[in-house]
């Protein structure tokens, strides 16, 4: 991001208007974060203004994390809960990709495929994936299959829409150049179209994974017997605030690692598009 530079000249306001250097940036970031944690500790100290049932002290959260690591909670260890969440999210996301990627590419390339399938997606797209959860529970029960179904619904729309858009908006000059050079239809599709579209395809995969994760957490609050969302809901019912915050933090950290991982993947498969 381009910094917004103020006029040259050393007025007193220049500290606020100048982009800090990397070291200053780190120092500001760390001291502000530390100040927030200190404030958190201060307001939740015994006899402090905030009740531990509203926000537990930082040490309680650390304790809860250690306790979760040491012994099983709600029938499984923390690792098993995380593995259960991850397997559903990856399973639904991959299944959606296996269907959505070819479908989207076909819809981008053949106009008849687009004319037929696009209205159906337009009809289904405004319905939030979360709204499918009650239906999934009625149809499939509260097992893994209901959650995989909901994650699949959440992930397939970005898969299809991005791959369609990517293939559709390819510069016609590239295609005509390949034709002139004697490429067959199949070669054009695999060597020119899919390659040029790759960054957008990966972007679709990234959005799909983010959607899948958000939706899975929701599904686990409603229908699950394991998983991080299930931990969070139970901890909130039993008023174990520490465990609730640990579950939320792990959900956030995993979501962030998905986003970072997909960015690295973009750099790996399409280095020319990385910013």
């Amino acid at each position: 991001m381009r910094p917004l530079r103020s006029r040259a000249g050393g007025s007193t306001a220049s500290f606020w208007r100048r982009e800090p250097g990397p070291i200053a940036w780190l120092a500001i970031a760390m001291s502000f974060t530390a100040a927030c944690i200190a404030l958190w500790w201060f307001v939740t100290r015994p006899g402090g203004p905030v009740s531990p049932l509203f926000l537990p002290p930082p040490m309680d959260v650390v304790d809860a994390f250690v306790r979760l690591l040491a012994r099983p909670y709600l029938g499984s260890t923390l690792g098993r809960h995380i593995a259960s969440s991850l397997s559903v999210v990856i399973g639904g996301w991959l299944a959606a990709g296996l269907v959505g990627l070819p479908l989207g590419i076909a819809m981008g390339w053949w106009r008849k495929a687009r004319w037929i399938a696009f209205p159906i997606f337009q009809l289904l797209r405004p319905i939030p994936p979360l709204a499918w959860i009650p239906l999934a529970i009625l149809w499939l029960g509260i097992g893994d299959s209901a959650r995989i179904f909901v994650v699949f619904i959440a992930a397939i729309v970005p898969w299809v829409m991005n791959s369609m858009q990517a293939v559709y908006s390819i510069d016609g000059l590239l295609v005509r150049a390949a034709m002139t050079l004697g490429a067959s239809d199949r070669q054009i599709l695999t060597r020119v179209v899919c390659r040029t579209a790759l960054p957008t395809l990966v972007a679709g995969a990234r959005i799909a994974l983010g959607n899948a994760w958000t939706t899975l957490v929701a599904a686990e609050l409603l229908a699950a017997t394991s998983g991080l969302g299930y931990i969070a809901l139970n901890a909130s019912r039993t008023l174990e605030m520490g465990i609730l915050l640990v579950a939320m933090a792990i959900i956030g950290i995993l979501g962030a690692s998905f986003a970072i991982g997909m960015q690295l993947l973009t750099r790996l498969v399409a280095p020319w598009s990385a910013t």
Partner: protein
Amino acid sequence: MTAMPGPRRRTGSSVPQPALYGALALTALFAGWWLATAIPGVVSPRVLPSPLDVVARFFFLAIEPFSGSTLEGHAIASLTRWLIGVLAALGLGIPIGVLLAWLPPCRAAITPIFELLRYIPPFAWVPIAVLWLGATTATQALIVFIAAFPACVINTQLGVSQVEPILLRAAKTLGAGPWTTLRRVVLPVAAPSIFTGVRIAFGNGWMALVGAELVVGKQGLGFLISQGQINDSVATIFVGMMAIGALGAAIDALLQRAQRVILPWKTASVRPLE
């Protein structure tokens, strides 16, 4: 722009071909649904009600109260909570976004915490929001706020940081104070990006609200479909889902129209699909 492959427009036919194909596809979909439910033994009506049942259920829900209120009542409850949440997100998110873009040290201070919280899905806040605020409208509005806020901040910040420094210097040279510069130079340049943020925020807020209503609350469209699940009525779930989808689509359509009115200079960055 050069000619593209793909849609070669055929002139001469009276009905546009894409519409014809689309109508055929949708007709086939509904006919398949109806046939599957009409022929006994294919699918049980408990699993998939016929389209006629769903239409009948829609009129029933629109007239008779179900789970506390009529369909309209649930929709109004949902829309109210949604509006409180998104307006709070706009009111707080846009000024914060401007501030973060204008004062880089503030950005450095807030970024770590903001990034950490941003990756927690809004829905994961439901259990703690219930503990904080109980099963009230405020809980739902808080979830909507959490879902809508990051999009407002990020897009405002992006838009403001894209303002060319030369414009700011020109404004300064012409004698504009910081407030005039903000109002007359920065905000118009950043407006398209801010508007994109608003659109994303409104959509995210609507989605998160449905999720929050599934877990807590005694009213709203999300509550309606969860009651449909408990009462084993797939038709009620279908009606609720369609109402949620239709309202979400209507909100987005209104925003698109508003964008054309408020920001007539913004040109579409991607080629529209046909």
